[in-house]
Structures are given as C-alpha cells and as structure tokens.
C-alpha cells in the first residue's frame, strides 16, 4: 500500500562512496537529508581493492578534500600503508596511494554519517521516482514497501547494484557485490522515464588467507617514511604509524597455460557476459589472451585490514570458474598452499548513459534529479566520491536557488572527469587517468588546496580554521618567491666553492636565488648553503616554491593554453537551441550536438564529430540569434 512516509529536502539513494559524500554535503548545508541503503552495514563499503588514491585518483581525493569532502580525512584515519607514487617523475604526476583497512574505513565513515546533524539513514530499496505530471521535475521516491518520500531533490548513487549479476565461470548469481542483495526495480522505473541505460561489467580478484602464503618467496613492499597525509587538514604527525607490508609475486607460464586451456569456460569469452568491461583493469584471462608475449604478470598481495587474514590479489581479477582460479593461484611463487577465502568474479550491472547529464550531474530531462558515482558509468571509489560531492553541492545550490557549482578542465581533475562523462560517449567504465588532464602541470596534487580551498569555503564546506591555514600557506609561498627573486648571491670564492660541491658551474657575477634554483642541477634543498637568511618553512611550502621556480616555463605555457580554453568555455550555448535548423552544420555534427546539448562552445569542441568549421558556423549562428533577439526587443 502506498502511504506518505515523510517530507524531506534531499533524498540520496545509495550509501556508497558517492552517496555518503552527497548526503554529508546536503546535511552540512542544513538540509534535511534522507540516505537510503539496502543495508546500513555496507555504508562506504570498499567492495573491491583495498586502495584509496593512486595515479590521478590521488589527485581526486586531494581535490575533494580541498573542497570539503570527507574521503581523504577518513582515509588518513584508516590506512595501513601509504606511498607517494611516481616520485622519480615530475611533480604533476606524483600521486598518493594508501592501502586502507577496508573495515575500518567503512566504520569511520559510517560513524561520521550517523552523527551528522540533519542526516538520516534509512534501510530500504527505492523502486520508483515521483515526478510532476509532465515528468520534468522530481518530487520524491517510492520504496519497495510503498512508502513515499517527498523531496526537493533526489540523488541516485546506486553504484553497481541495479540488476546486478555476479559471474563465477559457469555459475552466475543474481546479487550485488560480495553476495549482497541487488536492486531490481529502479532500472525499469528509469527506463519508463525515458532514460537511456547501459550494461557495464567489472570484476574483482580472489582473496586468500594470509596464513597460507609463504611471503619469503615474494618481494616485500614497504610504505613511505614519513607518510604524507591525504587531507590538507590532517596533522602529518598523526599519520606516522607502524605500517603493514604488501608483497609482490608473479603469475607464471604454467598458470597461463591453465587459463588458455579453460578459456572456453570464461564467461567473458563464451558469451555469457554481454556487458562492456574496462580495458584498464583487465581480468587475468584478458591479459594472458591479449598479451601472449608476456610470460608473467605482476600480482600485488595486499592486506584487506588489520583484523582480518584476508589478502587482496591485485592484478588477478578473474571470472573463471572457482576450480580454475584455485589452481592458477597455486602456481604462483609463495602461493603453493594458498587457501582461497573468496573467489574472484565478474559483475554486470545497469548504469546510466552519462550523456543524459548536465555538467552539474543533474539530468537534462528531469529537474532536481541527480546521478553520481558508478551509476554514471565511472569506476573507482575516488571517481564516485567526487561525483557524489559535486552532485550534492549542485542539488543544494539548486534548492537554495543559487548558482550551480561547476569545475572546468583547467581547474581540477574533477572537472575533467565530469566533462568527459557528459560530453563523450563512454563505452566502458570510466577511470580517471593523468593523461586525460590537458593541464596537469597546473592540476597537481600538491596544490589542490591552493586551487580549490577558497571555492570549498565559499560553498560553506571548509572551516574557518582550514581556510586560514590555506591562506597563510599561499602568503608564505608568495613571500618566499619574492625573497628568492630579490636575494642575490655574490660571485665570491666561498659561494663558488659551494656551487662546485653541488656540482654546478661557478658564477661570474651576482645571481638571484630564483635564477640559481632554475639550473637543472640545483634545487631548493641543495642551494641552502648559499642562502643563510632562509626562513624556516614547512616542506609543503618549500615544495610549492621549488615547483613554481623550476617549472616556470612549462607552467606559463599551460596558463596560456588555459586562457584560450577559457575563452571557448565562456561562450554559452542557449538551452533551447535547435541544431537541426542550422543547415550549414554537417549532419553528424547536428545529430551529436542535438543529443549531447553542450553547455558552451568549449564542450561542443570536444564532441567527436564536431569539426572546427562546424564550430565557426555555430559561432556565426549564435551571433545572428543574439542580434535577432536584440532587434525583436
């Protein structure tokens, strides 16, 4: 029986990494928020790998933290090991990655959510959406028990649970991840509202009992000392904890042979799975079949938590039958007696075609309805979390009748991620990658606070104390840069002897510290002996100063590119534009533009099939319309 249960401000469906960030934003901004989950025990569950961060994903976490999201802070309280990846590379690609204690992470986040004012958790399956008669505005949701919940905005963050199916070789089970209950009704409700859905696939590897492994046959992988925290607000002293080890082993020819022999039993190869899987996270059977020349593949053995013996096998994702997986496991060094706790599997699920979305993550069809996370065809905890935050903020801005909050590609990886989702046709789960960011020299993980904290503060998501710290840091960087520019060292014997030790060529006349630091062989640290007046600064400030000086040329070039980019982004395309009327556009361009309906010229330029000539035609058309409207008035 249908009955009115409650009237709230915002309903969030799903309490995974996207849902919790969205709900926290909404509640913190003072809106009564109802967070639905199939099971409160699985709030912020890390269903697959035990990592947070990694190349480009670490950037997302830092950006989210700068804006006021919680993933970074909670990770700092829940990690087992932490490493800064790519440290031998340029600063733009340094990336923080933590091994999280999955249980502890989930528990800590649940604690936050449960204790957040205005935020209410409710167990239940949402089966349909309530709209106005024209189906243009959201009104609320209906649960499987018939309860109606009215809200001003609804956020769908259902992850991989819609019509999910897990496949283990010939066996398939109609469940969500880890055997959890799936949601079966919402897909149809969305289709009935006219949304396009797609079927994606992803997978997870087996988990093994650490007591059954012989670690002496593997390479040990230690965490960094000292640990750099994810959050700009975390006191670095609090994260210098004893860390857990990870291990590296390899698959071997014997195991590959087993895979080849049993490939007809793989659901990916025998046609049982129809969903599109990601190319970046291939199953071991994919890797063996696609790269036959490689006679071994790396497998990282990572702890799932401090209070469990389960170990995650990164690189061994598989949907082969259980017996084959078991046998392959035991061909690896150190795994001769391995005991499998959980079998690897592939999971197929319904998700939204993200071209249905505006860059605020609101749907184009129904006002007040937002989607975030894996439901949008992305993959990864971090990708989900940032979308949750952005959808949450935009829902709040909307019901408060404020300006939408959009980050563009020159401002954040978050902007790149969302722009890609809403302008490009994604044929597979979308993963963030550093190569997707055109301006990555500016979008570094080290300066995420300098880029985004003010924005987070303006949105009411960053505390006074936090913004004060960021402003002080900014000020200190500028001051030190000025000092380096204005401090000259003399061409005397003493200084030249120090230079010789670096070793760097001697100077003939006075040179500023800034110029000196630019020399390829010099850096902020090794010129310290020439700079006795140097103030004592935190390592984070020193890092910024050094990057600013050493990569000035590259940074300037990217800033110029960004200016050109911004020009295009500022040229808005009216929402009611009828592309089919612009007959000078090529047919393909007309169709694509009509389907995607970009916000501005910049977005239009990124749609495949829209040529520079089409853009010119569009520009002329826009101008003509503007004139026409002016004349009509």
């Amino acid at each position, binding site marked *: 029986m249908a009955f009115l249960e409650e009237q709230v401000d915002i309903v969030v469906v799903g309490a995974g990494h996207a849902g919790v960030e969205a709900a926290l934003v909404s509640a913190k901004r003072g809106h009564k928020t109802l967070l639905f989950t199939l099971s409160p025990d699985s709030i912020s569950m890390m269903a697959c790998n035990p990592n947070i961060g990694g190349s480009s994903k670490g950037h997302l976490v830092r950006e989210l933290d700068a804006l006021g999201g919680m993933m970074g802070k909670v990770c700092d309280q829940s990690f087992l090991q932490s490493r800064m990846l*790519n440290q031998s*590379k340029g600063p733009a*690609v340094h990336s923080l990655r933590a091994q999280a204690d999955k249980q502890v992470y989930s528990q800590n986040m649940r604690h936050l959510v449960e204790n957040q004012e205005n935020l209410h958790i409710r167990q239940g399956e949402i089966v349909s959406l309530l709209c106005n008669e024209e189906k243009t505005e959201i009104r609320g949701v209906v649960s499987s028990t018939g309860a109606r919940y009215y809200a001003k905005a609804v956020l769908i963050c259902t992850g991989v649970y819609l019509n999910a199916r897990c496949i283990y070789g010939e066996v398939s089970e109609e469940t969500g991840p880890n055997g959890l209950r799936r949601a079966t009704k919402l897909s149809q409700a969305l289709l009935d509202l006219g949304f396009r859905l797609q079927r994606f696939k992803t997978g997870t590897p087996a988990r093994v009992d650490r007591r059954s492994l012989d670690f002496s046959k593997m390479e040990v992988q230690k965490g960094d000392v000292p640990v750099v925290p994810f959050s700009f607000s975390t006191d670095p002293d609090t994260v210098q904890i004893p860390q857990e080890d990870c291990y590296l082993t390899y698959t071997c020819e014997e195991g590959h042979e087993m895979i080849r022999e049993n490939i007809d039993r793989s659901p990916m190869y025998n046609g049982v799975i129809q969903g599109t899987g990601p190319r970046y996270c*291939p199953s071991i059977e994919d890797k063996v079949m696609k790269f036959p020349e490689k006679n071994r593949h*790396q497998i990282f053995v990572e702890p799932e938590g401090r209070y469990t013996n389960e170990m995650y096998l990164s690189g061994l994702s598989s949907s082969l039958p259980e017996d084959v997986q078991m046998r392959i496991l035991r061909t690896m060094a150190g795994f001769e007696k391995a005991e499998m706790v959980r079998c690897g599997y592939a999971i197929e699920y319904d998700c939204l075609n993200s071209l249905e979305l505006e860059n605020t993550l609101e749907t184009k069809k129904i006002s007040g309805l937002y989607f975030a996370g894996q439901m949008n065809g992305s993959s990864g905890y971090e990708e989900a979390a940032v979308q949750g935050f952005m959808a949450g903020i935009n829902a709040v801005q909307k019901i408060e009748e404020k300006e939408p909050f959009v980050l563009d590609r020159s401002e954040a990886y978050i902007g790149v991620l969302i722009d890609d989702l809403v302008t490009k046709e994604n044929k597979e789960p979308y993963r963030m990658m*550093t190569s997707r960011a055109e301006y990555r020299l500016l979008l570094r993980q080290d300066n995420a606070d300098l880029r985004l904290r003010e924005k987070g503060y303006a949105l009411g998501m960053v505390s006074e104390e936090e913004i004060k710290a960021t402003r002080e840091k900014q000020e200190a960087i500028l001051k030190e840069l000025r000092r380096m520019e204005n401090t000259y060292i003399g061409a005397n014997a003493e200084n030249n002897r120090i230079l010789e030790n670096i070793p760097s060529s001697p100077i003939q006349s006075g040179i500023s510290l800034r110029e000196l630091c630019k020399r390829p062989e010099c850096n902020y640290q090794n010129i310290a002996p020439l700079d006795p007046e140097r103030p004592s600064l935190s390592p984070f400030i020193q890092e910024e100063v050094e990057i600013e000086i050493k990569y000035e040329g590259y940074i300037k070039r990217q800033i110029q590119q960004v200016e050109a980019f911004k020009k295009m982004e500022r040229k808005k395309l009216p929402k009611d534009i009828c592309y089919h009327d612009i007959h000078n556009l090529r047919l393909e361009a007309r169709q694509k533009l009509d389907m995607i309906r970009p916000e501005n010229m910049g977005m239009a330029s990124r749609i495949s099939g829209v040529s520079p000539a089409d853009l010119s035609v569009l*520009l002329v*058309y826009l101008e003509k319309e503007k*004139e026409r409207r002016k004349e009509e008035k």
Partner: protein
Amino acid sequence: MENTISGIATALVESGIGIIRISGNQAVEIAGKILRTKGGRPLDIRESHRIRYGFVFDGEKEIDEVLVSTFLAPKSFTGEDTVEINCHGGILLMQKVFQATLKAGARPAEPGEFSKRAFLNGRIDLSQAEAVADLIAAKSEDSIRSSLSLLQGSLKEKIKRMRSRILEDTAFIEAALDDPEHISLEGFSEQCQGHVEEILSDIQELLKHQREGRLLKEGIQTVIVGKPNAGKSSLLNCLVKADKAIVSNIPGTTRDTVEEDIRIGSLSLHLIDTAGIRETEDIVEEIGVNRAKEGIEKADCVLLVLDGSLPLEEEDRKILALLEGKKAVVLLNKMDKESILQKEELEKLSGFPVLPISAKEGRGMEELGQKLEELFYTGSLSFSTETYIHSERQIAALEEAKSALELVLEGIRLELSEDFLSIDLMGAYSALGRILGEDVSEDLINEIFAKFCMGK
C-alpha cells in the same frame, strides 16, 4: 580575436593587382615589419584610411613595389585593425608577399575567417549571416578536398607514420605514469631521444622538400640540362625575357645568380642551371654528366636541351637515362636550322614529350608552357587560393610539430622527467594531426589500452 591573420584576398590568378589582407590587433605591427619606403626606411602605416607607396621586403630581399592601405578598428572590413597590401598580380608575387606576412608573425587565415570576423564584429549585417556560414562551410569543404589531394600518397603516409611513432612513445610514458608499479620508464629517455631525432629529421626533410607545397610556394624546381652549346643559356635567357615582358614590374630580380624565378603560362618555375649559365657564352662550359645528375635528383621538372641540328651522342643518351621517373620535357633546340633529330623518333626513344623550339628566336615557348601545365595540373589538384593557403597552414603545422619535438629534445637534455616530454610529444602529435585533419582526443587513451597491459 587573439590572432592576427593573413590571406590573399583576391583570386590567385594572373591579374593586374593582388591584395594581401592582414587583420587583427597586430596587423599594423606585422605589416610594418615587411614594409619600407623607397629610401629603405621603415614605412609608417599607422594612420588609418590612407594609402601609401612602398616596398615589401622579405628580410633584406625586396619583393615588390606596393600600395598599402591601413584601416584601424572598427572602421575596416573585419572590424579589426586591417592592413591591405596591393601588390602586382602575379601568382608568385602574391605568394611571396603573403609568406612574408606569415614570417612576420601572422597566421594563415582559416576558411572564411575574414568574413567570420567581420560578422562577429558587427561589420556584416544580419541578412548576410547565412551567407557567411555557408561560405565557411563551403570553403572548409574545399579546403579539406584540396588538403586531401595535396596529401595524396607518400606525404600522407609519412605523416601518419611519424604520428603513430610519436603516439607509441607517448602512450608508453602515460601508461607508466598511470601504472608505475607495472611499467617502468627506466632508460626510456634515450630511446625516445633516438625516435624524436629521427622524426625531426623527417620533418626537416619534409619542410625542405614538401613537393606539392613547394610547387605552389616557390615554383617548380626546374633544372635545365644538356651538352655545352646545346642552347641552355639561350633557353634560360629566353624564358626570363618572356616572363619579364609579361610581369615587367618585378623589381630587384638579381641577375647574377644561376637561379631564376620565372613564370610560364600559369606556372611558376624556379629555374636552376646546371653549369653556371651566367658565365659568358664564349667560354666553353665543361659540363659533366655528374653535374647534370646532381641537378636532376633535386628537381621537380627537367628541361633537356638537345641541339636538333646534330645527331644524338653518347652524352645525350646518358643524360636521357638519368631522367627515368622524372617529369621532363625534351627540347629540340635550333628548329630554325635544319633538323637531324626527329620529334617522333625521340619521343619513342625517351618516353618524354619532345618539343621543337628555337631559343634564339624565342619560338616554342608557349607550347612549352602548355606542356608543363599538362604535366603538373593533373588529377584533382586545383591551385585555388584556398588550396594554396591551405598548404601554408600545413607548413605552419609542420613547423609547430618541429618546435614541439625540439622542446622534447631540450627536455631530455635537461633530464626532465618523462611526463614533461609527453606534453610536447602530444603537442607535436596534434600539430601533425591538423595536417591530416584528424581528431586527436581519444587516440592516446586508446593507444595506452591497446598496447599496454594496465594492472589493478
């Protein structure tokens, strides 16, 4: 509008006057760089709506005597600062003046760009907007067609190969950055350096020898070969003289080199003599087969001059053999005398068109022009203004790719990490892509997934 653009505003045909138009906020500055007064001082063109008299220079080389009009914003065709250079209407001259504006900092205009700017700046009224859009659409179609015809064959393949090599290296770097635990970049800089150096030298080669581009830009590299006394010098003189008669206003054509730019029919030829033809004819030239060989290798077109009044000698046959695979015309000189060599016989023997001429009396030059046009205006290649400017855009893109790759080498020299190299590699990749008119956005990601085994 951030860029200053330049284009040939009149049709690229032989006519009395040709107009090169420069538009954008640096138009006056750019034009100023190439204009001088008769006395050799910089020409002051800052005042709007005035016509001045002066000379266009390419560096220190005088190109043409011109009239220059300046129209400052907003009172100009485009609504931006505009400088129009009225030069003599020879194809070659218009091209040279245009190129000088590019060297001075303008970029070649996109199809319909002047009209587009005019419209966007409110200089063309609403009723014409549709026409502007049509123009852009039509001209870019034209441009794409001509780009395809310009790029037929080996050049296109070459650029594609360069691009795929750049992409491979970039994808390797990017894959390693995204998956540092599985893919190592150890020692990759050196490999990359080797690849980049190879590609750079290919690009340099292309820039030097871009056949079709050069065909349009500098004229057809034409070499005159033949035995001493066959009449090479007379032919050169005759061609130069004929040209002068038509375009009598080319100033400063220096007469003391062995190279001459001339126009015959609607073609521009860059004539090169194989044996110092400026030396007086009294001195017996000592032309060897080797010298001819060298010239022929470099040339787009060969004019073999034979003395029709003498029988074919061993040396002639040797030179004929060198013409294999070239575009060439055999000229039977001295048709005013009694002829021993027969046109038909010789055509059979050589496989090249044979034309009887008299260099001394200037006969047969018109026929030579027609023959050359037949040789060079084949297929879909049409030498419209758009085609020509398009080839300039391609050259600009090649130059851009070149400087991006030079930055890669610089980065390697400075031992910058690979993620910096990848930025400029992609710069070169997309510049080369513009030549082919290809979309780049998803290439890198696809390449990474196709070639590398990304873990998780």
